[in-house]
């Protein structure tokens, strides 16, 4: 018996000298990251600005993570990044990169620019939307080579509505900001309200132009005056007035939506399921906290790297097929394995509900069932889209 071990040990050493028994061939993978700087306009609540490199730092960390893995497989990942405010500059860069052979594109732009990317680049390019939450991209754009790692607004508002339902916060007072994005967020929430059987008791548009930092205490109670409501919903994506709704409502009620209790793709307070390690890696590499855009870009780059790791090739169509297959799974620190919806390329994921200092809950909520996958209770199920199952 003991003799046998010896022999084994010897055999191992010999193999080690010859090179490891699991042999991998060298692969170099270039991933393009294109980010559009979007001017949000002046906001009232401007004390804590969003980081300008939101997204980029996530992509960079994913490259680091992937190269640590790649070192053992002789795979090398490189990020070709460009941040610019002009979508045309980004598009022409993408075209040049495509012509130079790059096939993986992580795109952090508005929805219109994403549509242009799908028109500009060849069908064999894999495009990952890591910036736009626009619902229409998931409902009506069934481009087979487009994937979304950032959740749709529908996923976010469904996650919130499930929680409201679970907490029996039935009657909702809605406040919607002035931008098209705010209206889109509100419309998405209305869909969720209908879906999960909640009711809206009042809808108001925010159109005030006073400086609420000084006058919120006198203006907000009057604005939210109503006989009865359980909760106040705010749609203010850029953070203009929403922060001033909290603690200033006519009735003392919780505030949810873009402020107060927020459904998000990611937040510093997410620590479960090994997320603490991702958070500390991110802080170490970027010097700040990881947000939803960072997470979405991270997930996009990791998706490409995970495919290359498993398929052992840089061939885009092989990897596209793998990403769409049942075999694909991404360990995304969200408590479940993550994969993509076959009909619209959306990354399935749990949605944390947070306030600035703590995680409150994680949707889908217990008891919201789905015939195939509970994660599909968030966002657009296949029947709710124009897309066919296969997206070929």
């Amino acid at each position: 018996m003991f003799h046998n071990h010896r022999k084994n040990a010897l055999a191992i050493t010999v193999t080690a000298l010859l090179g490891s028994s699991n042999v991998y061939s060298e692969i170099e993978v270039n991933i393009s990251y294109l980010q559009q700087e979007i001017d949000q306009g002046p906001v009232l609540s401007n004390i804590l600005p969003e980081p300008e490199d939101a997204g980029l730092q996530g992509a960079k960390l994913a490259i680091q993570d992937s190269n640590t893995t790649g070192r053992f497989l002789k795979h090398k990942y490189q990020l070709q990044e460009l941040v610019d405010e002009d979508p045309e500059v980004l598009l022409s860069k993408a075209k040049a990169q495509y012509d130079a052979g790059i096939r993986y594109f992580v795109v952090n732009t508005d929805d219109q620019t994403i549509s242009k990317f799908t028109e500009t680049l060849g069908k064999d390019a894999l495009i990952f939307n890591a910036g736009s939450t626009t619902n229409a991209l998931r409902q009506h754009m069934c481009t087979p080579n487009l994937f979304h790692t950032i959740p749709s607004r529908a996923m976010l508002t469904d996650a919130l509505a499930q929680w409201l339902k679970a907490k029996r916060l039935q009657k909702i007072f809605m406040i919607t900001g002035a931008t098209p994005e705010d209206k889109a967020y509100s419309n998405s929430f209305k869909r969720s309200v209908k879906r999960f059987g909640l009711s809206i008791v009042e809808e108001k548009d925010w159109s005030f132009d006073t400086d609420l930092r000084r006058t919120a205490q006198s203006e907000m109670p009057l604005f939210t005056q109503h006989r009865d409501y359980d909760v106040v919903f705010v749609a203010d994506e850029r953070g203009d007035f929403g922060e001033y709704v909290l603690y200033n409502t006519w009735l003392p009620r919780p505030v949810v939506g873009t402020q107060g209790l927020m459904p998000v793709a990611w937040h510093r307070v997410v620590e479960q399921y090994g997320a603490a390690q991702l958070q500390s890696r991110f802080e170490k590499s970027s010097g700040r906290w990881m947000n939803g855009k960072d997470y979405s870009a991270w997930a996009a780059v990791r998706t490409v790297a995970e495919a290359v790791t498993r398929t052992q090739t840089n061939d885009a169509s092989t990897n596209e097929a793998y990403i769409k297959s049942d075999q694909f799974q991404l360990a995304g620190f969200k408590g479940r394995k993550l994969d993509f919806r076959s009909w619209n390329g959306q990354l399935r994921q749990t949605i944390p509900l947070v306030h600035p200092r703590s995680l409150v809950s994680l949707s889908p909520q217990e008891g919201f069932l789905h015939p195939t996958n509970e994660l599909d209770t968030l966002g657009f199920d296949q029947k709710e889209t124009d897309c066919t199952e296969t997206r070929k």
Partner: protein
Amino acid sequence: MNFKKSLTALAVGSLLASSALYAETAYVSNEKDDTISIIDLDTMTVTDTIDVGERPRGIILSKDNSKLYICASDSDTVQVMDLATNQIIKELPSGEDPEQFALHPNNRHLYISNEDDALVTIVDTETSEVLAQIDVGVEPEGMAVSPDGTMAVNTSETTNMVHWIDTEKHELVDNTLVDQRPRHVEFSKDSKLLWASAEIGATVSVIDTASRKIIKKITFEIKGVHKDKIQPVGVKLSDDGRYAFVALGPANHVAVVNAKTYEVEDYILVGRRVWHMEFNQDQSLLLATNGISGDVSIIDISKMKAIKTIKVGRYPWGVVIKP
């Protein structure tokens, strides 16, 4: 870990010496309380709770059962507790964020995974000297040293690999790609097979040590539990070679696997988010830590059932048993 043989040897010794006057004692690390709970297995009660470093996770006994090694992850150290006095007598350099570790059969070399730094640190427990640091994948987690002492293995959770380390040269010699988020690794007694759990992949891979290739992948299915909640973490092999027990995390069950045919024979209901396990000395009992419910389940192997639950601290993580 794999020091059953020395445990047995020692047990025989202590039986002769003390005629089993002393009951077996279980030590449980409480990740969110920064404590170790001490359980008397005769009375099945917690007899003491000891303050230790921050975020204690992996714990192991020295081969002579006189010391407890504790990975105090957030204190960036491995603490050494003297089990005669329950005092921390030493802190070993561990590298940053030590999570799990394994003791070489030589009772000296501690192999520590440094989760934040993608390193395995090898420390001499006697001289407190760092012998080597080896680059591994992202978020190194599980550690094991083969009972024959020739090979150490480490899993990296985000790289999804089992890394093979030559214990003589302290060098990485090979990598085996496994499923998503590999957690725990456990060698068979004869060192010929390695069992590796993959939490998100929901599988346990059985790997041939000589070729470092996967020979079998075990999957799990529990009626009424969504497949995504089946997340294998801890693995424990019985000395008689009959069983492998696999803790299935948020599925709240421990799977009983036939270690010869690799068939899953049973699922034992335990507490919430079951994590790591340990046998008592004669292997009639298996203790399992339940993170979310904050307790330890005691499984009777003859009945394949949890017979008792003992409340410990917040988020119990690791468990060892001193004969």
